[in-house]
């Protein structure tokens, strides 16, 4: 046996940078792709934390009169769960995808303001960490809770000093205020990027629906977030400077807070769902092997929804005693928003109609999204019926409703997007086997958790109660929900394992694993920091279709 000496003529491999160098690269990065990945990863970490908080809630409610969790802890858990999922999971993950994909999809090298982009991410992250620091930083004063316990919409006057000792509301306000600045920066960045940096030939009406949804979301963020910021600043004035905006004792108005919060809060719901519409509108055509059905109406519906989302906020306030005429107005505007939403659903069905559906994991999540979102939308229509809302608003029916929208809707779309774009981001495929398992376990667990909530709500269970009497007929429904949580927990473990496993051992993805049609698949996986060289020129909505089918190009039909 001979040992061959190493030849010294070969060039030495460039040494892999050390851990610290690599961390440093990520910290100082202004590359939209890296920032996108940072946004998504931070969002997923917060998602795991928020999920554990939900577990505490479901554990406490699993059976009647459960003595395990004390009321303050329970109230903190649902407050932090809601705040986390909306502000630290939904927004960053969706905007993260927007960050990653928008420049790639419109054929440019980066966002319009790369440094603002980096600033936005770090501000968001530290805002979130500040909120979580409340667990430590706000405790100490006798009897005052550590983390906020006022609910994610923190109705005044529960947030005034008289009813809330200690500083937890300050952490809540400042945490959201700070991370909100990050979101606004990203909103502005998306709008400017999309309006100014499209590649040659990429007219507005040639942009992928995903980019349209990001444009619309950007505008909504720019309009809605400042209202929330203003409300939070007013609350800080109340708490620190002796102002009385929301103090009923001194002619402040407690309803002013609700109006301001929901004027942000309802567009916020669409900020959380419109990007999901975008993901679905990219995934469904590719796996049906068909062009999106009714592109123009899809765009019109998006813009329609965005405009109208700013005129429906008081449907969160049907039980505060608004005059009947106002109740009627907001019921009507809320009903009407179902029309553009319906158009989108029908157009997705139109897209798969006559297609050749390939059931890969992203497609399962996309179709799961459509199916579940329809349910959430229909219970939304029911809730817009003011008298029915008097029956079930602030009950578990509402909890069931918005989880069908934000979990069955947004989160399913996010998982679909992760399975769809992970190969582009990492160069590795996620395991299909684990992915399908993840989908089915999550789908079953999700329905098991949230469908019974509609029933417990109609049986008279208000939301946010930490305990209930054993003889109310609520036990079985709550037990089902809690079991469902356990099933979902397993699904999330499968997902985490799939990510970790595939990052190390996944198959190589290649540039275009799904045989897709938008520009991000025209470059390498993962793309180089400059994205494209040279920059692409497009003639239609599906540039890669044109390239793959030169005999039958899209632009002849548009």
């Amino acid at each position, binding site marked *: 046996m001979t040992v061959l000496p190493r030849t010294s003529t070969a060039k030495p491999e460039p040494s892999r940078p050390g851990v610290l160098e690599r961390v440093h690269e990520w910290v100082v990065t202004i590359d939209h792709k890296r920032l996108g990945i940072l946004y998504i990863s931070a969002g997923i970490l917060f998602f795991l934390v928020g999920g554990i908080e939900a577990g505490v809630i479901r554990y406490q409610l699993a059976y009647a009169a459960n003595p395990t969790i004390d009321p303050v802890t329970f109230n903190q858990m649902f407050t932090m769960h809601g705040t986390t999922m909306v502000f630290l999971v939904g927004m960053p993950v969706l905007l993260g995808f927007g960050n990653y994909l928008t420049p790639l999809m419109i054929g440019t090298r980066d966002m319009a303001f790369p440094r603002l982009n980096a600033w936005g991410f770090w501000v968001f992250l530290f805002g979130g960490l500040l909120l979580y620091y409340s667990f430590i930083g706000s405790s100490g004063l006798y009897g005052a809770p550590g983390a906020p316990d006022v609910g994610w919409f923190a109705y005044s006057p529960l947030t005034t000093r008289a009813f809330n000792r200690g500083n937890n509301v300050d952490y809540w306000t400042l945490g959201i205020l700070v991370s909100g600045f990050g979101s606004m920066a990203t909103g502005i960045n998306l709008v400017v990027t999309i309006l100014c940096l499209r590649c040659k030939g990429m007219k507005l009406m040639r942009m992928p629906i995903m980019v349209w949804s990001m444009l619309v979301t950007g505008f909504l963020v720019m309009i809605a977030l400042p209202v929330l910021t203003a409300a939070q600043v007013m609350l800080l004035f109340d708490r620190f400077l002796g102002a009385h905006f929301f103090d009923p004792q001194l002619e402040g108005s407690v309803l002013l807070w609700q109006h301001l919060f929901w004027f942000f809060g309802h567009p916020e719901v669409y900020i959380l769902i419109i990007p999901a519409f975008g993901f679905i509108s990219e995934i469904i055509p590719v796996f049906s092997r068909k062009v999106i059905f009714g592109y123009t109406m899809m765009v019109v519906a998006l813009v329609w929804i965005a405009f109208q989302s700013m005129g429906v906020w008081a449907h969160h306030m049907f039980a505060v005693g608004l005059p009947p005429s106002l109740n009627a107005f907001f019921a009507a505007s809320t009903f009407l928003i179902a029309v553009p939403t319906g158009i989108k659903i029908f157009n997705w069905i139109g897209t798969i109609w*006559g297609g050749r559906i390939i059931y890969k994991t992203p497609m399962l999540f996309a179709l799961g999204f459509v199916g579940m979102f329809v349910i959430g939308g229909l219970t939304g229509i029911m809730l817009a019926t003011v008298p029915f809302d008097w029956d079930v608003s602030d009950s578990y029916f509402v909890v069931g409703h918005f989880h069908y929208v934000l979990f069955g809707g947004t989160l399913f779309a996010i998982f679909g997007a992760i399975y769809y774009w992970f190969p582009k981001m990492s160069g590795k495929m996620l395991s299909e086997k684990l992915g399908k398992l993840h989908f089915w376990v999550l789908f079953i667990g999700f329905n098991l958790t949230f469908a019974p909530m509609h029933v417990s709500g109609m049986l008279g269970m208000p939301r946010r109660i930490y305990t209930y009497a054993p003889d*109310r007929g609520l036990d079985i429904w709550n037990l089902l929900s809690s079991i469902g949580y356990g099933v979902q927990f397993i699904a999330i473990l499968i997902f985490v394992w799939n990510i970790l496993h595939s990052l190390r051992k996944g198959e190589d993805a290649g540039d275009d694993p799904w045989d897709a049609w938008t520009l991000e698949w025209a470059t390498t996986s993962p793309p180089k920091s400059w994205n494209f060289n040279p920059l692409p020129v497009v003639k239609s909505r599906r540039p890669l279709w044109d390239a793959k089918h030169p005999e039958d190009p899209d632009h002849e039909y548009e």
Partner: protein
Amino acid sequence: MAEENADRTVARSWLLLVVVTVLVGLVGFVAIFILGAQITEHDPTETFFEASDVFVQPDAEWNTTIFVSKSPETREIRRLTWLVVLISVGIFVVVEGLLVFAMIRYRRKNAETTGEPVQMYGSNPVELAWTVIPILIVVTLCLATVRTIHSVQPTAGERPENSLTVEVIGHRWWWEFRIPEYDVVTANELVVPVQRPIWLELGSADVIHSFWVPELQGKMDAIPVKTNYWQFTADEVGTYLGQCAEYCGTQHANMLIRIDVKDEADFKTWATNQALPAPNETTPSAVNGRKVFLEYACQNCHGVAGLSDGNFAPDLTHLMSRTLIAGGMLPNTIDNLKAWVENPQAIKPGCDMPALQLSKSEIEDVVSFLATLK
């Protein structure tokens, strides 16, 4: 040749889409019309559901379901509810049916299939149809909703002539009820006459609460420095339960409401008794207990007519006429009263009543004083 095939595929899938939509839509509409007629006649809960149904728990002591309507207001609301439920179920069946059908019909049957299916870019008539039809449904829903809002929601000037006014004041975490007509002040448990409109004037002493007794009326918020008006007329004598529905802090879960509907005579007896001052019992223990009540902090918060006028906490003048204590957490028994006076924080952590560190004999005395408040 290929082109011709493609055209035929397109034509066939369009035909299928149209036929399926029309068929499912027809079935849905027929169902809505048949069932809709039923709904305008009466509440389907009465005909469709037996009392043994899962949605109504006949044995439950705590029946708070919206599937039982015991007032004209709730019947009005739930007729509309059933209409909306039916329309929603119809849409659900059509949309999910189309989705599942398309998912099965258009799956890729053979992994080796090459080439792409025919590309359909859209269709103006079809898209117009699924814009206009939802608009028609929306208009129907709007009209029905507006009508029910106006018939159920009262405004300040609409107090019926013969109604009984009840002032409802939310506190953390209990309810104060006042009936000015009879000079009644009580807590958590309200007695009202049957078949007489009850006019509620809702307010709050601290944060926002929401008054919810599902079998008698939908919920309405009780808001500080704003009076909300709400109204119901109970059909039948009985006990109706509810609770605060707007998150109001630590003990939001234990802010329960109990409404006893009695006939006019029983109600008058109750109200007259409630308006009397506290009886003056002279057993030594009760006398001692009264002394403790007046000397320690009790009287600062609790009112007892003729003795103290604290109003931060439930009025105790006729404490023993109530079934439950602690915002509805415990049955009103001597033992529970003792446990409560000894350490309320152990039972209802976070509530405003402190443990006063009374001695065993002081607790005995105070509770025997309380027991005289009939």
